[in-house]
Protein backbone atom coordinates (compact mmCIF):
# COMPACT_ATOMS: atom_id res chain seq x y z
CA UNK A 1 0.00 0.00 0.00
CA UNK A 2 1.42 3.37 -0.99
CA UNK A 3 1.79 6.23 1.50
CA UNK A 4 -1.10 8.10 -0.08
CA UNK A 5 -3.44 5.18 0.72
CA UNK A 6 -2.60 5.06 4.41
CA UNK A 7 -5.70 4.89 6.59
CA UNK A 8 -6.31 8.32 8.08
CA UNK A 9 -8.88 9.64 10.53
CA UNK A 10 -11.79 9.91 8.07
CA UNK A 11 -11.07 6.45 6.64
CA UNK A 12 -10.94 4.90 10.12
CA UNK A 13 -14.22 6.59 11.09
CA UNK A 14 -15.81 5.47 7.81
CA UNK A 15 -14.83 1.82 8.17
CA UNK A 16 -15.86 1.78 11.87
CA UNK A 17 -19.31 3.21 11.16
CA UNK A 18 -19.73 0.97 8.10
CA UNK A 19 -18.99 -2.16 10.15
CA UNK A 20 -21.32 -1.07 12.99
CA UNK A 21 -24.25 -0.20 10.69
CA UNK A 22 -23.74 -3.24 8.44
CA UNK A 23 -23.54 -5.56 11.48
CA UNK A 24 -26.62 -4.03 13.10
CA UNK A 25 -28.75 -4.23 9.96
CA UNK A 26 -27.62 -7.77 9.12
CA UNK A 27 -28.51 -8.83 12.68
CA UNK A 28 -31.90 -7.13 12.30
CA UNK A 29 -32.81 -8.88 9.03
CA UNK A 30 -31.56 -12.30 10.20
CA UNK A 31 -33.60 -11.91 13.41
CA UNK A 32 -36.66 -10.93 11.34
CA UNK A 33 -36.20 -14.01 9.15
CA UNK A 34 -35.84 -16.34 12.15
CA UNK A 35 -38.91 -14.90 13.92
CA UNK A 36 -40.96 -15.16 10.70
CA UNK A 37 -39.99 -18.82 10.24
CA UNK A 38 -40.80 -19.54 13.93
CA UNK A 39 -44.19 -17.83 13.55
CA UNK A 40 -45.00 -19.86 10.45
CA UNK A 41 -43.93 -23.09 12.18
CA UNK A 42 -46.11 -22.19 15.17
CA UNK A 43 -49.07 -21.55 12.91
CA UNK A 44 -48.73 -24.36 10.39
CA UNK A 45 -46.41 -26.89 12.06
CA UNK A 46 -43.94 -26.77 9.21
CA UNK A 47 -42.59 -24.34 6.66
CA UNK A 48 -42.43 -25.50 3.09
CA UNK A 49 -40.73 -23.06 0.80
CA UNK A 50 -42.40 -22.68 -2.59
CA UNK A 51 -45.59 -24.24 -1.18
CA UNK A 52 -48.59 -22.35 0.06
CA UNK A 53 -48.60 -22.90 3.86
CA UNK A 54 -52.37 -22.42 3.90
CA UNK A 55 -52.70 -25.71 1.98
CA UNK A 56 -52.30 -28.60 4.45
Amino acid at each position, binding site marked *: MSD*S*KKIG*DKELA*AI*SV*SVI*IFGGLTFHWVAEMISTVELLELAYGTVKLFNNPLVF
Partner: protein
Amino acid sequence: MFSTILSQYKATLSVFVVLLVIVVLEFLQVRAAIYPSLLPAFEWLKNSTPLGYIGTTYGSIYATVQAMHLLTMGTLGGLVLATDLRLLGVMFRTTPSEVISNGTHKAFKLTLIAAVLTGIFCAAGVADKVYYMPVFWVKMLALAAGAAFVFLIKQPLLSSKPHSEINPWIIRGMAITSILVWFTVAASGRWIGFS
Protein backbone atom coordinates in the same frame (compact mmCIF):
# COMPACT_ATOMS: atom_id res chain seq x y z
CA MET B 1 0.80 12.60 23.28
CA PHE B 2 -2.91 12.45 24.22
CA SER B 3 -3.65 15.82 22.61
CA THR B 4 -1.87 14.66 19.44
CA ILE B 5 -4.12 11.59 19.20
CA LEU B 6 -7.16 13.79 19.91
CA SER B 7 -6.30 16.19 17.11
CA GLN B 8 -5.32 13.47 14.62
CA TYR B 9 -8.33 11.19 15.15
CA LYS B 10 -11.17 13.64 15.84
CA ALA B 11 -13.70 11.90 13.56
CA THR B 12 -12.92 8.39 14.83
CA LEU B 13 -13.07 9.46 18.48
CA SER B 14 -16.37 11.27 17.82
CA VAL B 15 -17.79 8.03 16.38
CA PHE B 16 -16.81 6.07 19.48
CA VAL B 17 -18.14 8.77 21.83
CA VAL B 18 -21.51 8.70 19.99
CA LEU B 19 -21.51 4.88 20.12
CA LEU B 20 -20.70 4.94 23.84
CA VAL B 21 -23.51 7.43 24.52
CA ILE B 22 -25.99 5.19 22.61
CA VAL B 23 -24.88 2.11 24.58
CA VAL B 24 -25.18 3.96 27.91
CA LEU B 25 -28.63 5.34 27.00
CA GLU B 26 -29.80 1.86 26.02
CA PHE B 27 -28.37 0.37 29.22
CA LEU B 28 -30.26 2.98 31.26
CA GLN B 29 -33.43 2.19 29.24
CA VAL B 30 -33.87 5.84 28.25
CA ARG B 31 -35.53 4.87 24.94
CA ALA B 32 -38.12 2.74 26.73
CA ALA B 33 -38.78 5.60 29.19
CA ILE B 34 -39.28 8.18 26.41
CA TYR B 35 -41.51 5.98 24.20
CA PRO B 36 -44.83 6.36 26.15
CA SER B 37 -44.43 10.15 26.33
CA LEU B 38 -44.36 10.31 22.50
CA LEU B 39 -47.94 9.02 22.12
CA PRO B 40 -49.60 12.42 22.85
CA ALA B 41 -47.44 14.02 20.15
CA PHE B 42 -48.57 11.41 17.60
CA GLU B 43 -52.22 11.81 18.66
CA TRP B 44 -51.87 15.60 18.39
CA LEU B 45 -50.34 15.24 14.91
CA LYS B 46 -53.33 13.24 13.71
CA ASN B 47 -56.20 14.94 15.54
CA SER B 48 -55.16 18.58 15.99
CA THR B 49 -53.09 19.60 12.97
CA PRO B 50 -54.11 20.53 9.39
CA LEU B 51 -51.87 17.69 8.14
CA GLY B 52 -53.78 15.10 10.15
CA TYR B 53 -57.15 16.64 9.21
CA ILE B 54 -56.38 16.65 5.46
CA GLY B 55 -54.81 13.18 5.65
CA THR B 56 -57.88 11.65 7.29
CA THR B 57 -60.53 13.62 5.37
CA TYR B 58 -59.40 13.94 1.74
CA GLY B 59 -58.43 10.57 0.32
CA SER B 60 -57.42 12.02 -3.05
CA ILE B 61 -54.93 14.44 -1.48
CA TYR B 62 -53.52 11.70 0.77
CA ALA B 63 -53.10 9.38 -2.24
CA THR B 64 -51.42 12.13 -4.28
CA VAL B 65 -48.92 13.00 -1.53
CA GLN B 66 -48.27 9.30 -0.87
CA ALA B 67 -47.55 8.83 -4.58
CA MET B 68 -45.09 11.74 -4.37
CA HIS B 69 -43.53 10.11 -1.31
CA LEU B 70 -43.08 6.84 -3.23
CA LEU B 71 -41.59 8.72 -6.19
CA THR B 72 -39.11 10.55 -3.95
CA MET B 73 -38.15 7.25 -2.28
CA GLY B 74 -37.71 5.66 -5.71
CA THR B 75 -35.52 8.57 -6.82
CA LEU B 76 -33.54 8.31 -3.59
CA GLY B 77 -32.99 4.60 -4.22
CA GLY B 78 -31.90 5.31 -7.80
CA LEU B 79 -29.40 7.95 -6.70
CA VAL B 80 -28.01 5.67 -3.98
CA LEU B 81 -27.66 2.73 -6.41
CA ALA B 82 -26.06 4.90 -9.12
CA THR B 83 -23.48 6.23 -6.63
CA ASP B 84 -22.76 3.02 -4.76
CA LEU B 85 -22.69 0.68 -7.76
CA ARG B 86 -20.21 3.09 -9.39
CA LEU B 87 -18.12 3.04 -6.20
CA LEU B 88 -18.24 -0.78 -6.34
CA GLY B 89 -17.16 -0.62 -9.99
CA VAL B 90 -20.28 -2.40 -11.23
CA MET B 91 -21.63 0.29 -13.57
CA PHE B 92 -20.79 3.68 -15.17
CA ARG B 93 -17.13 2.64 -15.24
CA THR B 94 -16.26 5.11 -17.99
CA THR B 95 -17.32 8.06 -15.80
CA PRO B 96 -15.06 9.06 -12.87
CA SER B 97 -16.64 8.11 -9.53
CA GLU B 98 -15.93 11.63 -8.20
CA VAL B 99 -18.18 13.10 -10.91
CA ILE B 100 -21.03 10.70 -10.10
CA SER B 101 -20.80 10.93 -6.29
CA ASN B 102 -20.65 14.76 -6.30
CA GLY B 103 -23.40 15.06 -8.91
CA THR B 104 -25.81 12.65 -7.25
CA HIS B 105 -25.18 14.13 -3.78
CA LYS B 106 -26.76 17.46 -4.79
CA ALA B 107 -29.89 15.68 -6.05
CA PHE B 108 -29.81 13.38 -3.02
CA LYS B 109 -30.11 16.33 -0.61
CA LEU B 110 -33.14 17.80 -2.40
CA THR B 111 -34.81 14.39 -2.79
CA LEU B 112 -34.26 13.54 0.89
CA ILE B 113 -35.91 16.82 1.96
CA ALA B 114 -38.90 16.08 -0.33
CA ALA B 115 -39.13 12.50 0.98
CA VAL B 116 -39.10 13.65 4.62
CA LEU B 117 -41.73 16.38 4.04
CA THR B 118 -44.12 14.07 2.16
CA GLY B 119 -43.38 11.32 4.71
CA ILE B 120 -44.46 13.58 7.60
CA PHE B 121 -47.77 14.20 5.82
CA CYS B 122 -48.28 10.48 5.17
CA ALA B 123 -47.49 9.61 8.80
CA ALA B 124 -49.77 12.37 10.14
CA GLY B 125 -52.87 10.74 8.64
CA VAL B 126 -52.17 7.43 10.40
CA ALA B 127 -50.04 8.69 13.30
CA ASP B 128 -51.91 6.75 16.02
CA LYS B 129 -51.44 3.56 13.96
CA VAL B 130 -47.75 3.87 13.05
CA TYR B 131 -46.84 4.77 16.65
CA TYR B 132 -47.51 1.13 17.65
CA MET B 133 -45.64 -0.38 14.68
CA PRO B 134 -42.06 -1.53 15.46
CA VAL B 135 -41.31 -1.46 11.73
CA PHE B 136 -42.09 2.30 11.64
CA TRP B 137 -39.42 2.90 14.27
CA VAL B 138 -37.01 0.64 12.36
CA LYS B 139 -37.56 2.85 9.31
CA MET B 140 -37.01 6.07 11.30
CA LEU B 141 -33.86 4.64 12.88
CA ALA B 142 -32.53 3.46 9.49
CA LEU B 143 -33.39 6.86 7.95
CA ALA B 144 -31.53 8.72 10.71
CA ALA B 145 -28.57 6.34 10.50
CA GLY B 146 -28.50 6.56 6.68
CA ALA B 147 -28.67 10.37 6.62
CA ALA B 148 -25.99 10.69 9.32
CA PHE B 149 -23.82 8.16 7.46
CA VAL B 150 -24.10 10.06 4.16
CA PHE B 151 -23.68 13.61 5.50
CA LEU B 152 -21.16 13.02 8.31
CA ILE B 153 -19.09 10.06 7.11
CA LYS B 154 -19.42 9.05 3.46
CA GLN B 155 -19.59 12.34 1.55
CA PRO B 156 -16.94 14.17 3.64
CA LEU B 157 -14.50 11.33 2.90
CA LEU B 158 -15.40 11.02 -0.80
CA SER B 159 -15.11 14.76 -1.42
CA SER B 160 -11.90 15.19 0.62
CA LYS B 161 -9.53 13.63 -1.90
CA PRO B 162 -9.44 11.78 -5.25
CA HIS B 163 -11.02 8.35 -4.84
CA SER B 164 -7.87 6.71 -6.20
CA GLU B 165 -6.11 7.87 -3.01
CA ILE B 166 -8.66 6.16 -0.73
CA ASN B 167 -8.24 2.50 0.20
CA PRO B 168 -10.59 0.67 -2.23
CA TRP B 169 -11.86 -1.69 0.49
CA ILE B 170 -13.05 1.29 2.53
CA ILE B 171 -14.91 2.63 -0.50
CA ARG B 172 -16.48 -0.80 -1.14
CA GLY B 173 -17.43 -1.17 2.53
CA MET B 174 -19.12 2.22 2.55
CA ALA B 175 -20.98 1.46 -0.68
CA ILE B 176 -22.31 -1.90 0.55
CA THR B 177 -23.36 -0.39 3.90
CA SER B 178 -25.06 2.50 2.11
CA ILE B 179 -27.03 0.12 -0.14
CA LEU B 180 -28.08 -1.99 2.88
CA VAL B 181 -29.20 0.97 5.01
CA TRP B 182 -31.29 2.53 2.21
CA PHE B 183 -32.69 -0.90 1.30
CA THR B 184 -33.81 -1.16 4.95
CA VAL B 185 -35.49 2.27 4.74
CA ALA B 186 -37.35 1.24 1.56
CA ALA B 187 -38.30 -2.25 2.77
CA SER B 188 -39.47 -0.97 6.17
CA GLY B 189 -41.56 1.65 4.38
CA ARG B 190 -43.29 -0.99 2.29
CA TRP B 191 -43.73 -3.13 5.43
CA ILE B 192 -45.61 -0.19 7.03
CA GLY B 193 -47.89 -0.18 3.98
CA PHE B 194 -48.36 -3.95 4.27
CA SER B 195 -49.24 -3.83 7.99
